[in-house]
């Protein structure tokens, strides 16, 4: 996918009407057959299956773990964010949690960086821990996490969201994957334009954590 994905309208060719009608008929047939066209997103599934109890849990989760959008708007996260620490502690106590050390690339932002990825597959939650990662100016650039899922096409890693790094001896960033990650093979951090990108140019790959290395 190119960065100019949304700019293809000028030279688009109209879908032949007969073909369009066939696509519609097939889609509507599938919709009727399944009741739902697509499996509901995790957020929708929560809404659908639950009542007040889950709603309350969702509020608690929202309070403690910023959504990807919230992270985009958030001020730089620092080690002082105690809910992330609580999440980290809870994950570290679970035998299903995997811990993968970061390896720095040649990029100056990550040259002196250390740390690890803590990932808990059953809940699709995790925490990135860094020391020595160069603080970013959110007006100029933001860090973005990518998760390469062995169960998906490696060219299209799962977007783990953008985040900012402030000063501090240790930085903890919660991970909320954009899509379910079945079998993570590599966690990678790039430095991108503010707000992050849908497809990274990977011009600045800062850190990588290959799972199982």
């Amino acid at each position, binding site marked *: 996918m190119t960065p100019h994905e949304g700019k293809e309208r000028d030279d688009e*060719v109209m879908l032949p009407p007969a073909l*369009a009608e*066939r696509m519609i008929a097939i889609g509507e047939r599938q919709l009727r057959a399944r009741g739902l066209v697509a*499996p509901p*997103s995790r957020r929708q599934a929560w809404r659908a299956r639950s009542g007040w109890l889950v709603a309350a849990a969702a509020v608690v989760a929202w309070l403690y773990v910023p959504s990807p959008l919230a992270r985009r708007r958030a001020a730089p996260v620092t080690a002082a964010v105690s809910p992330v620490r609580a999440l980290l502690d809870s994950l570290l106590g679970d035998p299903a949690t995997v811990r993968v050390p970061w390896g720095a690339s040649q990029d100056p932002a990550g040259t002196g960086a250390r740390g690890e990825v803590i990932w808990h597959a059953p809940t699709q939650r995790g925490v990135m821990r860094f020391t020595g990662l160069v603080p970013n100016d959110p007006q100029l650039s933001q860090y973005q996490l990518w998760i390469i899922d062995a169960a998906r096409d490696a060219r299209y890693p799962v977007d783990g969201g953008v985040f900012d790094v402030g000063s501090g001896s240790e930085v903890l960033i919660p991970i909320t994957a954009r899509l379910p990650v079945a079998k993570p093979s590599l966690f990678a951090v790039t430095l991108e334009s503010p707000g992050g990108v849908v497809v990274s140019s990977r011009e600045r*790959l800062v850190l990588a954590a290959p799972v199982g290395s």
Partner: protein
Amino acid sequence: MTASVASPLVRLAAGEPSAVRECVTAFGAMAWTLALRSSADETDAEEAVREIFDALWQEAGCFDPSWEDARTFVAALARRRLEARARRRGAPATHDQGWFNWRVLCAGRAVQDLEEAR
């Protein structure tokens, strides 16, 4: 992103039948254009566009309007389907995987270098 473009995908994920037609109307030209570009002829492109929409019916629930533009979501999905289709036929993968594989390789080597240095 405008609500009028995003809403068909959201409603499709919710199972609203009318959203099917709206999605084909909104994204049909893009899907068809991409399919034509990667197909040998129109018959092949018709099969390709069907694969794209089949995938859209399946994966619409992954779309999050707070995160990305609807056209970007559909275009990415279409390209994935077309790439998968090309691979099934033994065609070499195109687009931008080269630099990414290279970067992953570089990252792997960097990690290896670090481990050896320790």
